[in-house]
């Protein structure tokens, strides 16, 4: 592996000034399950590796009336094992618990899964349908960005040189909210999504109509996608199978998959409709509703 220096700062300010002084030559290490492999294989370079795992702020999960706040270095296992997260955000757990096996879960962070910006990252569609926001800090100050705008190309995110993802916030679920994420892989565990899809819905009090919906797709474009039109279509519509299928068809229309070793473009297109339909049905069920035939 290429040589680099290693430093494990104790606070965010130290990280920010280090990143600024290194002018793009430093890489942030959290779980290392992507970074260490990429450095070893020469897919990324680093003069400095900045380990952020010892920073208390970045390791915190905060649950309050405003919602959930996930520190950027919190491991997938820590989130999935949190009883409040399990109860209030099962749709997030759907995506996060699929990232690798036990060994990867205990090391990999959700912040890292996001920053790695893989088009097939399982956490990202789930975060998007939960309206999650990235909280970014740098020497220029703090800024926020919706998760759907954070990935800009395969392996490339919206962080500027010197910026650090501090935490991800997820708003508290509104009344009659439900969400779900599913992916297709040819085996049962430990694989990368051929297609991933997430859906969330808010239903009216009678559970007859959608108030709103969000649908997001993974592994069918250079970045995870928010299918805005498909989600907007459902607003105010009756909760029927026909409407669910129409939203799934609209989501399918924005998928621009490629053919690669994991699947053909045609297969991926087909899977988008199947997974969107299933995640919508699950999200409706979690919101306490049921679709009419």
């Amino acid at each position, binding site marked *: *592996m290429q*040589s*680099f220096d290693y430093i494990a700062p104790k606070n965010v300010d130290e990280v920010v000034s280090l990143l600024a002084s290194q002018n793009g030559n430093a890489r942030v290490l959290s779980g290392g*399950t992507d970074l260490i*492999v990429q450095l070893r294989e020469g897919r990324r370079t680093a003069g400095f*590796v900045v380990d952020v*795992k010892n920073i208390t702020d970045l390791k915190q999960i905060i649950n309050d009336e405003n919602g959930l706040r996930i520190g950027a270095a919190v491991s997938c296992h820590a989130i999935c094992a949190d009883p409040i997260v399990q109860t209030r955000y099962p749709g997030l757990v759907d995506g996060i618990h699929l990232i690798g*096996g036990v060994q990867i879960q205990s090391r990999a962070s959700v912040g890292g899964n996001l920053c790695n910006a893989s088009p097939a990252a399982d956490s990202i569609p789930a975060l998007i349908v939960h309206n999650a926001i990235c909280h970014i800090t740098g020497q220029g100050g703090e800024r926020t960005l919706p998760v759907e705008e954070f990935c800009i190309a395969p392996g490339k995110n919206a962080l500027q040189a010197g910026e650090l993802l501090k935490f991800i916030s997820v708003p508290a679920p509104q009344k009659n909210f439900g969400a779900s994420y599913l992916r297709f892989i040819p085996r049962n565990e430990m694989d990368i999504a051929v297609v991933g899809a997430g859906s969330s819905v808010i239903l009216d009090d009678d559970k007859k109509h959608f108030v709103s919906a969000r649908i997001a797709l993974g592994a069918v474009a250079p970045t995870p996608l928010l299918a805005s039109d498909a989600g907007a279509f459902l607003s105010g519509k009756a909760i029927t199978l026909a409407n669910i299928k129409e939203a799934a068809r609209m989501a399918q229309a924005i998928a621009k998959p490629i053919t690669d070793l994991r699947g053909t473009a045609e297969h991926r297109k087909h899977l988008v409709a199947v997974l969107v339909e299933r995640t919508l049905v699950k999200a409706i069920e979690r919101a306490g509703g049921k679709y009419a035939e």
Partner: protein
Amino acid sequence: MPNKVHISATINGEETEFLCEPRQSLLEVLRETLGLMGAKEGCNNGNCGACNVILDGVLVNSCLVLGVEIQGKSVTTIEGIASPHGLHALQQKFIEHAALQCGFCTPGFIVASKALLDNNPDPSEQEVRTWLAGNLCRCTGYDRIVKAVLDAADS
């Protein structure tokens, strides 16, 4: 060339000090610096589990941990599983069930299974299979491994 870093850690219960470069993985340190050859390098990218060790009670792939990250931490490798009095139940059951052929993946499977039983002493077959999804074996077809782990849990 960055300087080597001095690290103190507990390896299989013993206070251990070593020097390592930041770029060296824990797996490299174990095998090349400390002479602990039990953890194996299979894929070197986190897919196969042959390098599994327990780091502060948590199962990890040692190829995905930097040696410098274990300062002050405790590591258990396959060499630390048996007691001076004999084999660990998992090791005994792997032998009884012939849960290995070439043996390359075996240290990783036994360390992973130890971490499972430490967390969940009475796992179901499905729990064993799911837990071991991050370990690859190209010889056995897994059945004998799963039976050995379930039998070790019972004993």
